[in-house]
């Protein structure tokens, strides 16, 4: 019943590890897009233009409440209908970047909103420029609030990259599926994929928690997580 084959495991491991690099690349690049676009979405919602604020708000809500895998299909297949051909990688990055940008824009927003209003007023009273207010006063105080959010979504985007395999991005999950199709063995490839995911996401999550504690401590704030 339980016929785990070690030979086979070591045979496919290099291929899976190579694909892991692509997964990390996809997650990293997607996250970078999300960080930049997310900031743009968040700032667009702080402008005095009511219409822009509303449109961005609705767009963010829409993207957040529809499935990522459907969005990936949408981006990949709608382009060719209008004569634009995007490679699986490009459309995958656009879809996952946009999806997480919507989530991250909420994190940015919560961070900026978490800074008490008195801090802004004090900056005005001290005649600080807007740039100085943001860089020296607001952003440093917003950082501890946003770190858990940013960290969680970094792990989340990593765990969502297998969805890119549906349009043929050759990442880790895609590699496991190909191995399964070639050899008719599913036990080892899928189990290994699970283990690789665990081996990356658990330490990352732990590191983020540590980093947050360290950050709060260095800013003289109280610890969020008690030792458990």
């Amino acid at each position, binding site marked *: *019943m*339980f*016929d785990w084959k070690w030979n086979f495991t070591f045979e496919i491991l290099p291929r899976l590890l190579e694909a892991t690099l692509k997964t990390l690349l996809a997650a990293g690049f997607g996250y970078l897009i999300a960080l930049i676009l997310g900031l743009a979405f968040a700032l667009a919602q702080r402008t005095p233009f009511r219409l822009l604020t509303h449109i961005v708000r609705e767009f963010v*809500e*829409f993207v*957040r*409440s*529809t*499935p*990522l*895998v*459907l*969005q990936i*299909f*949408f981006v990949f*297949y*709608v382009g*060719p*209908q*209008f004569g634009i051909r995007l490679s699986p990688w490009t459309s995958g990055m656009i879809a996952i970047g946009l999806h997480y940008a919507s989530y991250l824009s909420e994190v940015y927003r919560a961070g900026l909103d978490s800074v008490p209003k008195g801090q802004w007023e004090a900056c005005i009273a001290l005649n600080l420029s807007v740039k100085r207010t943001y860089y020296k006063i607001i952003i440093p105080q917003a950082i501890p609030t946003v770190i858990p959010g940013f960290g969680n979504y970094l792990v989340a985007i990593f*765990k*969502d*990259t*297998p*969805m890119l395999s*549906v349009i043929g991005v050759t990442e880790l*999950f895609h590699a496991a*599926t190909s191995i*399964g199709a070639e050899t008719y063995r*599913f*036990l080892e490839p*899928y*189990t290994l*994929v*699970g283990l690789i*995911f*665990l081996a990356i*996401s*658990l330490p990352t*999550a732990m590191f983020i928690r540590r980093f947050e504690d360290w950050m709060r401590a260095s800013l003289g704030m109280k610890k969020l997580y008690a030792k458990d």
Partner: protein
Amino acid sequence: MQSYVEFLQTYAPRFVDGTLVTLQQAGLGTILAVVIALVMAFMKMSSFFPVRWVGIVYIEIFRGTSLLVQMYWIFFVLPLFGLTLNKFTAGFLAVGLNLGAYGAELVRGGIQSVPRGQYEAAIALNLPPFKRMRRIIFPQALLNMLPPWGNLLIELLKSTALVALISVTDLMFESKMINSTTLLSAQTFGTALIIYYLIARFILTPGMRGLEKRLSRKLSIG
């Protein structure tokens, strides 16, 4: 625009069929997720080490890997251990088990957010442990955790789209099929996106808000 109306007239029944399967998957997944969340949260808070450990390992494994990987594992690997599930069962099972792990952390957070004084008062009133949890702590915890559960249920609804990849004929699957016969991708996937959005925005969100209102009224009156 004309052609879109015709498109809808032709394919509306299939979108409806798909939506019904999606709702079934989401409904069954939700029930399973709630049960798993409660069980695992209490296990993780247990003072008995082996029980606590099971809770921790379960939560970390299911939160540490992808739902898609878990679903494929359940569907393709479990049969090798002699447990063959049909695709419909495998679909909502994976969704429920995965989201249940996230839910467990919400339950735990909710229970721990109830002020310490409430425990002490319940002990002072000599309530037995089970009654203390059921009558005093849990109702207050429930009120705290309802808003994050609303978000989690939207995540759950979105997650059910993945069951299409093991050929459960849900909304995602139907739209993939329609797309491959018509090649009208914008119309097909656009319609599916809108249906998901409408379910999340006009059924789930108001539903959870209504639940929250009812519970808070109940708690404040008696």
